[in-house]
């Protein structure tokens, strides 16, 4: 019995459809990313040293160590930049040491006294752990090749420094200047070397060339009326200080006072 033509066509189409589907399923062999797994692995002593890598590093390490590990001073307690809201023991030390050295150099070279030292919190790259202090510590604290610079600023810009400090809420190392604020972080008074600020007076501010050239957006340095390059790397300044003293002081005096 011949099949009704209509039925035949339907079947034919069905086969065609299936075949088409088959081809389609073969051609769309598309890849899908259906699963993701993420983890962070701590690198601990669980992993032994790769000998090839270790042997490659050794001559470099030996050369540097010879230079770095001679003991220069002693640190009675760990000085840490993360301890303190408005000032830290390590920041105080760095600001005071830099102040003293810059003041001596400025007096010899320019016959002027320094008023303020301002560095940046971000520039302190390590703690000074309790114990022996070496050249290595100086490198870790200050790996950057930044140099000492003294900027001559008007009193007006010194006030900008104070506002910058309070707005930024960071314990930038500061020396020679005291800022008193109330509980709303409003500035109540600013003194430099114990005296109120005179807008037209020129103040001498020691800092790093990084900050002087726009680092950390310390824009007040752009308005400096004079600059004195001290040609002294801040790290070398620190190393020379470590060589001078036996024991590092732990300086907790307040530069920003919250009343």
């Amino acid at each position: 019995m011949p099949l009704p033509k209509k039925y035949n066509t339907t079947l034919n189409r069905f086969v065609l459809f299936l075949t088409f589907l088959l081809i389609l399923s073969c051609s769309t062999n598309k890849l899908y990313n259906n699963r993701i797994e993420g983890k962070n692995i701590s690198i601990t002593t669980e992993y032994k040293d790769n000998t090839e890598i270790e042997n490659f590093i050794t001559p470099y390490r030996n050369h540097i160590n010879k230079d770095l590990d001679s003991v220069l001073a002693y640190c009675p307690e760990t000085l840490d930049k993360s301890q303190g809201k408005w000032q830290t023991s390590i920041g105080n030390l760095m600001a005071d040491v830099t102040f003293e050295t810059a003041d001596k150099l400025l007096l010899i070279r320019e016959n002027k006294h320094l008023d303020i030292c301002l560095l940046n919190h971000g520039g302190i790259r390590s703690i000074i752990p309790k114990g022996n202090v070496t050249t290595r510590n100086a490198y870790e604290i200050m790996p950057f090749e930044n140099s000492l610079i003294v900027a001559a600023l008007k009193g007006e810009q010194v006030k900008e420094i104070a506002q910058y400090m309070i707005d930024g809420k960071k314990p930038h190392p500061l020396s020679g200047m005291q800022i008193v604020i109330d509980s709303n972080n409003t500035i109540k008074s600013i003194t430099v070397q114990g005296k109120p600020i005179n807008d037209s007076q020129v103040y001498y501010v020691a800092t790093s060339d990084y900050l002087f050239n726009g680092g950390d957006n310390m824009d007040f340095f752009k308005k400096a009326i004079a600059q004195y390059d001290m040609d002294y790397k801040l790290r070398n300044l620190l190393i020379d200080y470590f060589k001078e003293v036996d024991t590092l002081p732990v300086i907790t005096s307040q530069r920003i006072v919250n009343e």
Partner: protein
Amino acid sequence: MKRRDFIQKTAAGSALVLGGLSLSSFNDPVKKITILHTNDVHSHIDPFPADDPRNANMGGVARRATLIESIRQENENVLLLDAGDIFQGTPYFNYYGGELEFKLMSMLKYDLATLGNHDFDNGIDGFYAQLPHAKFDFVSANYDFKNTMLDGIVKPYKVFVKNGIRIGVFGLGIELAGLVDKRLYKETVYNDPIEVTKDITKTLKQDEKCDLVICLSHIGFLYKNDPDKVCDITLAQKTRNIDLIIGGHTHTFLKKTYIEKNLDGEEVLINQVGCYGLNLGQVDFYFENGSKTFNGRSITV
């Protein structure tokens, strides 16, 4: 009658073949891509000493090499990436200018890196001078190096093909003004990361037909005190087609991979492993033939 039989049999056969084929195609082995990453290693080549108050006995390139080697033994398709700030932080950089960092990363078989702000610390010339020691490339899509010596050397992105899977990796860098001395980065032009990403992800998806898009970012994870500053979170939210952002700069130790939604409501993974080579990040992507699952991707972090 016979004809009908034939047609019916063919139809059944066709259906059977179809079923069989699709079944076999679903049984194809799953393709796995393993992404390993570091960021902000900052010249930390040796492990921290045993008396370090914070990271005692942690990190070290020789140990990282052992870990990476063991992962490579178990996984065929590995990409090893770094999100910048390779330089600066130990005397190795001050004494050798980055030579040892690049040589070791080459020995570990890094595939690609982007530039962090500290990679400019010896100037753009200092970076350029160390490039012969790096057997891997650098990418940055938002630094325009046209008027610098890195022109044509640092490309916006690179496409890798691993086991038939196309992986596009592009780089993003942080705004340099105010962070790096202009005398160091010279005529490098910083462009807005989000605008650049919109273009680059389109290129990677449509022109380069990438199955996976990864951003090597040194723009930072999040700035709580400066919510308007562009960061990895806003980058993920305001763009599309990124699968994974490998972050850096903020030294953020993420306990687990962060998941954010993009403009299309799709998940973007963000991972960052702190700093100093203390950790290695690992993200595994599994690819299957067939169709996209209805429930979206399963993400285990």
